C-alpha cells in the first residue's frame, strides 16, 4: 500500500518534490505574514486594557504555537526514522530542530517584551514562558545530541530517540508547569487569551498564525533540501545539481 512513498525514502525524489513545493510555501508565507503583521501591528484597534502593547501577540502566539507544533513534527519524523529506517526522516529531524528552537526563542523574547510594560520586569515565571523555556532546552538537547557523534546516522538515531522521549514528556511538563503556576499564583502575562477577542483582532491573528505555519514549513523545507544535498554529495545527481564536480578525498 505504501509503495508510492518508497522513492521518498531516498534523497533525490524528495529533493525534487520539496523543490516544487517551496515557491508556493514561501510565497504564501510572505503574503500572509505581510498582511497579518501589517494589519495587526498597525491597523487593529488598541486593547482597552493593555493599549498598544498587546500587539506583540501577533508574533508571540503563533511563534509559541508552532514551537510546539514543530516539536511534534520532529517527533513524527523521529518515529518514522526509527521504525522504518528512513534516511530522509533522519535528516528532517536536523531540519526542523533549529527552526523550532528559533520559534521558541522568539516566543520567549516576545513574551518577555510583552511583560515589561505590563509588569515592569523583563521576566516572570509565567506558566507559558516557563514551559517555552523548557521546550527550548529540549530542542537544544536534540541538536546537541545529533551533532555529537562522528557517524551522522548514529547521531540521527540518538536524536530521534531523544525527540520521542521528549514528546512524551512535553505534555507532562506542560501540565506540571501550569499546575505549579496555579499553585504559586505567579504573575500571568499571557492572560490575554482567545475568549474575549473581538473579530478586528482575531482575524489578523489568524492570518498571522497561517503566515507562521507557511513560514515554518518553508524554512523547514529549505533546510531539508540543503541537508539532503549535503548528505548525498557523493551521488551524481547531487553533484549535477550543484553544477560542481566534487573530488574524492576532499
Amino acid at each position, binding site marked *: 500500500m505504501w509503495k508510492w512513498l518508497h522513492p521518498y525514502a531516498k534523497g533525490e525524489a524528495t529533493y525534487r518534490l520539496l523543490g516544487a513545493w517551496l515557491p508556493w510555501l514561501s510565497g504564501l508565507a510572505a503574503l500572509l505574514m505581510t498582511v497579518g503583521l501589517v494589519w495587526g501591528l498597525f491597523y487593529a484597534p488598541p486593547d482597552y486594557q493593555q493599549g498598544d502593547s498587546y500587539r506583540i501577540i501577533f508574533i508571540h502566539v503563533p511563534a509559541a504555537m508552532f514551537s510546539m507544533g514543530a516539536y511534534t513534527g520532529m517527533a513524527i519524523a523521529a518515529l518514522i526514522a526509527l521504525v522504518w*529506517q528512513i534516511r530522509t526522516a533522519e535528516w528532517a529531524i536536523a531540519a526542523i530542530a533549529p527552526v523550532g528552537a528559533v520559534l521558541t526563542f522568539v516566543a520567549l523574547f516576545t513574551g518577555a517584551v510583552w511583560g515589561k510594560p505590563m509588569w515592569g520586569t523583563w521576566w516572570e515565571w509565567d506558566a507559558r514562558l516557563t514551559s517555552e523555556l523548557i521546550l527550548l532546552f529540549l530542542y537544544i538537547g536534540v541538536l546537541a545530541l545529533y551533532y555529537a557523534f*562522528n*557517524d*551522522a546516522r548514529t547521531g540521527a538515531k540518538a536524536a530521534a530517540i531523544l525527540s520521542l522521549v521528549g514528546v512524551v514528556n512535553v505534555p507532562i511538563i506542560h501540565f506540571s508547569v501550569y499546575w505549579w503556576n496555579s499553585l504559586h499564583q505567579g504573575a500571568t502575562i499571557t492572560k490575554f487569551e482567545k475568549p474575549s477577542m473581538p473579530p478586528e483582532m482575531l482575524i489578523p491573528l489568524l492570518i498571522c498564525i497561517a503566515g507562521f505555519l507557511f513560514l515554518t514549513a518553508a524554512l523547514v523545507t529549505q533546510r531539508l533540501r540543503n541537508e539532503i544535498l549535503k548528505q548525498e554529495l*557523493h551521488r551524481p545527481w547531487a553533484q549535477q545539481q550543484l553544477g560542481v564536480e566534487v573530488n*574524492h*578525498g576532499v
Partner: protein
Amino acid sequence: MSVVLEAQQLTSVRAGRTLFSDLSWQLAAGEILHIEGPNGAGKSTLLRIVAGLLQPLEGNVLLFGQPQREDPEHWQRQTLFIGHKPAVKAELTALENLYFQSRLDGVQLDDPWQLLETVGLLGLEDIPAQQLSAGQQRRIALARLFYSQAKLWILDEPFTALDTRGIDLLHQRFAEHLEHGGALLLTSHQPLTWSGERLQRLRIEAADE
C-alpha cells in the same frame, strides 16, 4: 556440506566512507573464513554486522538459511561473538568472571578449575581481573570457547596479546570446533598458520582515497 552462514550483497557506509559494497560470500560447516585487511578497512564492521550489532546499509545475512532480522533471538543462541574488547569485568576475579559468563552463555560449569587450567589461569583465579595482564584478561574471555556449543564463532582479533602457547591452544580448539561441524569467522592481522583446505580468505581493502 551445509552452509552455516551466508552474506548477500552487504554494503556498509560509516562516517561517510563506503567500507564495502555488494559483498557476498558463504561459510560452510567445518570451515574458517579469515578476514584480512589493513586497519580501519572495515573488518570489524563486517564482523559486527554478522554478529547483529550493526545494521548494514543494504544486504542480508543468513544463518542456516534464515535471515538475521527475522528471529534475532534464535540467531543469538547459536552464535558466539568475542569482540576487540574482552568483556571481562575488571573488579571481579577470573573465577567470578567465568562463573557469570558461563551463566550468561547458558552453561553450567561442572569444573571451573579444569577450565582455568586449560586456559592457563590456574593459580590466578582469586585476583581481580584489572590486576592481570592483557594476555591473561584475554584468556578469561577466550575461556568461553572451551565450553561453548554455539555453531558459529565470530572472533575479532582473538590472538591479541597471546603468547605462542596461547595461540597454539586456540588453534587446537578451533580444530576441535570445526571437527564438530562448527564454523568460524575471524579477523587477525597475523597470518593464520593453518593447513589449507578448510580455510577461506577475504580481503577488505581501504578504498582508494
